């Protein structure tokens, strides 16, 4: 971990918005906004995600770090700014239940990394199909907490295929962490072990060409 990333990560975890903003400003002055999204923001959030997986950090810290990060980057790169990344059409949703935190974290990570995305809130099979079709979504991030909701994603995958909608599905949430093969079983294209994986997976799915 390089020095700016370590400093930014530490500031986020200390809920020190002022220090985080200083590190961010210094990076933007040095290399510009878009490279900073990659080398500082995504790198820091990825480190934070890894630390959570290792049991070194708690979810509340990730939530607060993401919130500060998202807020900071939007002061430098407001939504709708032409400097935001050229990207596929993205959406994030919770499937079938009301456990919204995972979705909120993914939303924060992707917005902090400079992406714009639709937030569908809670969806079920019918509403997910309708929204994906209407908005011509290319990559759908789905968060679940419950096993049965995770298993139901297989129905969504099948119906999307039948409808000829070429959307990629990225899943995340507890059931996928406790059963490593589950994401393939339900027909997802990728699985994030933590919210910070979202930005990395997005780059992988798009060949890094954003």
């Amino acid at each position, binding site marked *: 971990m390089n020095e700016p990333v370590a400093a930014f990560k530490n500031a986020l975890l200390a*809920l020190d918005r002022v220090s985080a903003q200083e590190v961010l400003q210094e990076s933007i002055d040095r290399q510009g906004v878009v490279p900073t999204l990659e080398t500082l923001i995504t790198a820091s959030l990825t480190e934070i995600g890894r630390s*959570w997986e290792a*049991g070194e*950090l*708690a*979810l*509340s*810290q990730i*939530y*607060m770090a993401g919130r500060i990060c998202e807020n900071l980057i939007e002061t430098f790169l407001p939504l709708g700014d032409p400097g935001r990344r050229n990207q596929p059409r993205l959406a994030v949703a919770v499937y*079938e*239940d*009301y*456990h*919204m*935190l995972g979705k*909120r974290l993914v939303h924060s990570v992707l917005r902090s990394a400079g992406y714009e995305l639709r937030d569908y809130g809670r969806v079920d099979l019918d509403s997910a199909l309708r929204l994906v079709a209407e908005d011509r979504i290319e990559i759908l991030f789905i968060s679940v907490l*419950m*096993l*049965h*909701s995770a*298993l139901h994603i297989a129905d969504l995958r099948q119906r999307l295929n039948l409808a000829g909608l070429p959307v990629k599905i990225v899943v995340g949430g*507890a*059931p996928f962490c*406790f*059963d490593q093969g*589950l994401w393939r079983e339900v027909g997802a294209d990728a699985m994030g072990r933590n919210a910070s994986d979202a930005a990395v997976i997005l780059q992988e799915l798009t060949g890094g060409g954003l």
Partner: protein
Amino acid sequence: MTAMTSLQRVLATMGNREPDRVPYFLSLTMHGARELGLSIKEYFSKGELVAEGQLRMRAKYGHDCLNGFSYAPVEVEAWGGEVIFSDDGPPNSGAPFIRSPEEIGRLTPPSIADSPCLQEVLKAQQIMKSRAGGEVPIVGVVVSPFSAPVMQMGFAPYLDLIFEQPSLFERLMAVNEEFCVAWANAQLAAGATFICYFDPVSSASIVPRDLYLKTGFPVAKRTIARIKGATATHFASGRCLSVVGDVADTGTKAIGVSVLEDLKTVKEACRGRLTVVGNLNAIEMRHWSDEDAERSVRNAIAAAGAGGGFILADNHGEIPWQVPEPVLYAIAESVRRWGRYPLAQVEEHG
């Protein structure tokens, strides 16, 4: 050693003595519905059905408890919130009923006597108590005052409240503590042997220790002191190793531990202070073979069985509806095969 009753077995292990064999809890909250040919919603609608389902589950699998638990959002229902039932999973809480933090000031705890959904839970426990003849522990469950707000107001707004509105947070804890204590004591009066204090937000996976010591810890300490029976704190598969000593200081007697942490290390940290409950992976369990079940049971017993202070269970607190009967039979058979004390013949099996 003469065979013990389930209650004797559990009390012995909680007293850090080795009983005749390792006790095991199967948290089959929904499988009773399938046994009775009912939907999950129908099953939970009457205490008589839940009691019958629980007794039949125990007759089948021989585990050492009866689950006096229905579903976590039964408490939300009592508060006036929405519950969403599913055909193949646990009922879930619906949209949060606290829509803005300002509503917390007007919140009053529901009356247990006037909550039909809670009365059905108590009825189930009364029936289990009368039919199990005092030989089987009955597990009552409360959602901790610190964890209930996730269902009451949503997770992210709750975290915002903790960080940004400490006085409203304290007010919410005070209201929730009143309800939690009353609900726990009502279950003990109905027949529950002890109370599972379900507190996932206090796990190290959700809040760091320094925040826990300012929030979930004092709440647990105050609440558990007023519950008129033993409690077991459960983190619903969240990590606990960094707070084991603190959890013991809350006055609880047992701790539900995660498959994400090394069971042997956790047991050492808990030794003499907390009985360890865990840590089979209930999500993976769905597709276990007999060999997988035996290996998992054997490894858990090898890691944590020695000296008592251990109850084999899943690490989530609820075995999913999708886990089939053969897996449950294989777990039961494996405990009987490898869980006999003394455990000299049990070694970790890769």
